[in-house]
């Protein structure tokens, strides 16, 4: 060496040489990073696009208002309107009636969806929400105020299969009304399904005379919004229960609706990226180990430690950059394709009926790039440090590989991870999100993987010694492979552990998710059985704002022969907090001797006889406890009448249907307090010998029979479970990606090891082992490793599933569930994983044993 080493050329040369010879490992690592980044980025893009579009659509309905006044219920009395319109700080008051109205017929086809109809006063709406002004036909300009006209957005027309001039039937209570489609709403957002009517016509046709949904206010210039809001709230307190909200409240409310879902999905995507870290680590670690001699030689030739460290990190950076960039491109294409073909809804049901466009988000792209690069560097850091600090002289000798890795096997970081994970499980949610729950999962996973080598060494050395002590000399031949494999695993546990990292991570996650989903599904199924005790269910229309059955109609239904019992149910919406979505108020007959007969109680309950005298009980869903602090025994007021009546919380019930909260109360109490005599649903119990077909047929003959929808508990159950499975479809996809990444890890580490062990194989060939036997040994090694990974993964996965079931779910969605283990499925996955790991090990080793045994042995000496 007369010339100093050209650093740039050297590092390029080293890199290209390494990469050219180990394409498989390299590709596996890049694919792992790319998949992780792609998944995370795609989910982020889809969720962001869907959420933004959904918010924009929601916002477009309230236009440019400064404040909104609404009641706790869906509508309130219009007498407030002139008061606000003449308020001296108000420039414009825009009254709005907004209802979700059912479309008769084809309810299955349209997935029970409703059409959102806005009743607007064009004279005010043209200022406040100019995008919602209907465009009538040229010769019928007057239609904009007509008493039978409706204007539909393009998406609504397409959805309903109608055009301008067609009649449109709507279901209002048990009646069907017919409106005329007088024109379009050309400026409605793409995919937004809405209809607009004159407010006077809407009040009349939709049977809401005297009712408004909200009044939007535009304040005079110079009026301080916050001060005005406080003043108005005080003024309104004297008139009844009203909520004064700002556009920010609306945004928060819309965000709150889907936040838990979005965050959880993003977390799952992160998991895929996280799994990729172990793969990068194993690729890099093994690459460094394999090149120990090369690096030692370079050190002897004058390369400094610093330069060596830089070299390995540079390799990691290149790997991470290529993987991340590929991932970003893949993620963007995936997001664009998914949005184009499936819309923005990933199965949660929050974003139906919108058509979002994908927007490249530079900030998110940078974050995911840095994340991808970061984990690659993280995976490269330890091996790089090891390579740089190794003493060149011993490193040049053979057999130093495992010693090198033993530095990575200190138990302390792993134990710290495990302990901190356990501590995190005890911490409360932050901003209603189970942040610490997810951190605990990450810590458990990391801790488990760090402790893996020690554990593997322990298990395999115990197994090895047990096996050798039991084996008689005559039987030596048969278990020789197992003995060798075990000896290898027991004595070089660190390399084994690296291979195991990916397997463990992916299997742990599969186990955790499978247990969680199965627990959830079984719980939902049990819950459905409990909440659907009757023989037949009847409902009017399908909409949230359907008017329902009148007392005369309910009498007619009760008079149908063959009925043993009929329970009527009234459900409505109640807004208790402007920042949160409305809760459901359900009034029905509840068994006072044991409310558990009617409601799926969770256990926390006050027995009705123990309730204070003269108080009205309500039963709240678990979400009410978490979100509003409605604990059993507490006295609360509900704004369902003026003055607001007070109730005692008599118990908590489980509700998988409404994550924003629900309250149940006695129908008799509700009717006495509100004077609302309408009901929405009925549960029918049949007398012996009567079939549901007979009852349905006689009810259909009633004058309003056509407006009734019947369903049997079985139908509702299967429909609900269908929806459940659909909402977890994305989860299954994520699990699949985690498995693929895990297997890539096995392939990468085994092929790297097999090459590194060429000398070992050569030696074994010399002492008489056939290639077949060596491959068999590799298969056993792979199988044993994966078996250990599966067992450990199961234990770790079970722990994580406890976090998912008992911490993440209750904190995100506010419901609890029972634990259920899907043994069969998990066993099947474990076996498949073991088999594929063995095959991968054999396939990777095939190349290493194919060479000349003599050359292999000589190579080093």
């Amino acid at each position, binding site marked *: 060496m007369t010339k100093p080493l050209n650093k740039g050329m050297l590092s390029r040369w080293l890199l290209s040489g390494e990469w050219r010879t180990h394409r498989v490992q390299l590709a596996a690592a890049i694919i792992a990073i790319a998949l992780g980044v792609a998944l995370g980025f795609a989910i982020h893009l889809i969720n962001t696009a869907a959420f933004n579009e959904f918010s924009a659509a929601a916002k477009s309905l309230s236009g440019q208002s400064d404040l909104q006044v609404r009641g706790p219920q869906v509508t309130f009395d219009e007498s407030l309107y002139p008061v606000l319109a003449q308020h001296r700080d108000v420039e414009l008051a825009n009254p709005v009636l907004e209802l979700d109205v059912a479309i008769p017929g084809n309810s299955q086809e349209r997935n029970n969806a409703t059409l959102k109809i806005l009743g607007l006063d064009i*004279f005010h709406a043209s200022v406040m929400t100019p995008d919602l002004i209907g465009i009538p036909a040229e010769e019928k300009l007057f239609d904009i105020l007509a008493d039978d006209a409706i204007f539909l957005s393009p998406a609504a027309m397409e959805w309903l299969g109608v055009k301008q001039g067609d009649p449109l039937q709507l279901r209002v209570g048990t009646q069907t009304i017919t409106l005329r489609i007088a024109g379009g709403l050309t400026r409605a957002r793409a995919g937004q399904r809405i209809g607009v009517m004159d407010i*006077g016509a809407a009040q009349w046709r939709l049977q809401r005379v005297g009712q408004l949904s909200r009044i939007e206010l535009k304040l005079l210039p110079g009026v301080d919004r916050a001060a005005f809001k406080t003043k108005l709230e005080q003024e309104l307190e004297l008139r009844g229960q009203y909520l004064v909200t700002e556009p920010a409240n609306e945004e928060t409310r819309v965000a709150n609706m889907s936040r838990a879902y979005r965050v959880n999905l993003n977390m799952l995507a992160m998991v895929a990226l996280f799994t990729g870290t172990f793969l990068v680590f194993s690729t890099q670690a093994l690459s460094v180990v394999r090149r120990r001699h090369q690096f030692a030689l370079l050190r002897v030739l004058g390369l400094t430690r610093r330069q060596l460290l830089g070299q390995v990190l540079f390799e990691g950076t290149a790997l991470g950059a290529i993987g991340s960039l590929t991932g970003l491109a893949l993620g963007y294409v995936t997001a664009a394709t998914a949005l184009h073909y499936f819309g923005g809804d990933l199965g949660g049901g929050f974003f139906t009926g919108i058509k979002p466009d994908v927007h490249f988000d530079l900030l998110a792209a940078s974050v995911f790039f840095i994340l991808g690069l970061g984990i690659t560097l993280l995976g490269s850091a330890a091996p790089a440090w090891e390579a740089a600090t190794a003493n060149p002289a011993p490193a040049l000798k053979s057999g130093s590989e495992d010693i090198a890795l033993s530095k990575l096997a200190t138990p302390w970081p792993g134990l710290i991870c495990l302990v901190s994970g356990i501590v995190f499980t005890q911490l409360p949610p932050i901003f209603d999100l189970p942040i610490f729950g997810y951190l605990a999962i990450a810590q458990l996973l990391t801790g488990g993987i760090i402790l893996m080598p020690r554990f593997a060494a322990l298990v395999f050395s115990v197994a090895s010694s047990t096996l050798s002590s039991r084996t008689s000399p005559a039987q030596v031949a048969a278990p020789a492979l197992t003995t060798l494999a075990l000896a290898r695993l027991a004595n070089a546990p660190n390399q084994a552990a690296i291979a195991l990292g990916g397997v463990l991570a992916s299997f742990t996650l599969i186990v955790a998710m499978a247990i969680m989903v199965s627990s959830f599904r079984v719980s939902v199924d049990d819950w459905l059985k409990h909440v659907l005790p009757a023989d037949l269910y009847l409902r009017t229309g399908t909409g949230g704002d359907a008017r329902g059955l009148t007392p005369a109609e309910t009498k007619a239904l009760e008079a149908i022969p063959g009925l043993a019992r009929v329970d009527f149910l009234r459900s409505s919406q109640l807004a208790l907090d402007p920042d949160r979505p409305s809760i459901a108020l359900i009034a029905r007959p509840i068994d006072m001797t044991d409310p558990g007969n009617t409601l799926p109680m969770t256990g926390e309950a006050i027995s009705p006889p123990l309730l204070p005298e003269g108080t009205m009980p309500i039963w709240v869903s678990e979400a009410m406890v978490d979100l509003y602090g409605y604990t059993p025994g507490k006295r609360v007021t509900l704004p369902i009448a003026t003055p607001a009546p007070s109730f005692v919380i008599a118990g908590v019930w489980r509700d998988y249907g409404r994550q924003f909260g629900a309250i149940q109360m006695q129908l008799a109490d509700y009717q006495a307090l509100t004077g609302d005599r309408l009901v929405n649903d009925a549960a029918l119990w049949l007398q012996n010998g009567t079939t549901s077909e007979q009852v349905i047929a006689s009810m259909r003959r009633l004058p309003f029979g056509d407006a009734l929808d019947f369903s049997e508990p079985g139908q509702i159950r299967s429909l609900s479970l269908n929806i459940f499975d659909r909402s977890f479809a994305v989860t299954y996809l994520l699990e699949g990606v985690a498995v693929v990444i895990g297997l890539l890890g096995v392939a990468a580490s085994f092929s790297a090891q097999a090459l590194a062990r060429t000398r070992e194989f050569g030696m074994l060939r010399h002492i008489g082992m056939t290639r077949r036997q060596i491959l068999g040994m590799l298969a056993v090694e792979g199988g044993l490793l994966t078996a250990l990974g599966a067992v450990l993964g199961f234990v770790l996965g079970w722990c994580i599933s406890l976090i998912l079931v008992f911490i993440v779910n209750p904190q995100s969605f506010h419901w609890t569930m029972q634990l259920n283990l899907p043994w069969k499925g998990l066993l099947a996955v474990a076996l498949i994983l073991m088999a594929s790991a063995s095959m991968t090990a054999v396939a990777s080793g095939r190349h290493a044993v194919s060479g000349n045994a003599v050359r292999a042995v000589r190579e080093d000496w």
Partner: protein
Amino acid sequence: MHILKCCSTHTDFFPGYWRSIFQLMRRPIPLQGLFVTFFVVTCFAATCVFATPPRFSPVVRDMPLTFPHDFGDHPSFRNEWWYATGWLETPEKKPLGFQITFFRVATEHDRTNPSRFAPQHLIIAHAALSDPAAGKLLHDQKSAREGFGLAYTKEGNTDVKLGDWYLVREENGRYQTSIKAEDFMLHLSLTPTQPPMLQDINGFSRKGPRPEQASYYYSEPQLQVSGTVTRTGKEIAVSGVAWLDHEWSTAYLDPAADGWDWVGANLDDGSSLMAFRIRGKDGGKVWAYAGIRDPSGRFTKFEPEQVTFEPQRTWRSPLTNATYPVEMQITTGSTVWLLTPLQDDQELDSRQSTGAVYWEGAVTVTRDGEPAGRGYYEMTGYVEPLEL
């Protein structure tokens, strides 16, 4: 004479509305007054498809007007308006012109709709202030459905309100009006000095050759004005003379009509002159009328063939390209009147909001060459239909 302005279905307003819609689709602009013209237009133009459209009273001859009842609203007729115009004088003796109009328009909306929001009647208001120092009109408009005490026209006596704009006739006959427009405010009281002037045949005012083409129409000329005008936050006291028209009808303009020219003038000797001409599409005269009442109360009526309008000078609007005959010679029998505008640009261009474009402004009037008085002059139908 505002019925004519509102009834043109063929020239300026109709395309104007469409342009508004077109603009609406492109950018969010306030359309508060979108309906000022289009409703009145569509009352006549639209083929009504409703199950139970309301039935309106016809305008018939020999139905004497009775006061004070007829000062108030007549909801059984389709259209109605109160229209006040006049000349004001500032403390510096500078002249200003003003126009305040309240319309009530009945819709075809089903009368059995029990909703208080049912748009059975719409209230529309226009206001304009003409100041030669500004060089153009300041104007604003409002519209709303009648109801909730926020917008109404009351029966029994003049009492109209639209938000914070109102026109009320007190028991003693004095009118109070308040307009809080975007760029100016008017607080005026108008005190009658003469009894109402019933137009044409005792208040039965013909608008075309057919008998149903008519309205009920009386004027309150020679109203003494006092009050304040506020501009750019500065309030000044004003006084002057004003003219108030109240007109209601159901039937509509002749289909051949293209536009009209109208004048109402308070003459210095205490006489009052009202004249109008309805122009046909062929450029000819569809109908014309003039009525003059002298200080002693003697009323002279002129038939269509006795009234001629002859443009003397035109002014071309730089904004709309419309050419208006801003100086007009009117001959009633043997008398020749000449109208000279306070300023040329008194065009009311509200294409950005209502789509309506017309010229409405203060004029001085000479009789046979001698200065005779001051009035208000209105010209519609001079904007070419928009080519879309």
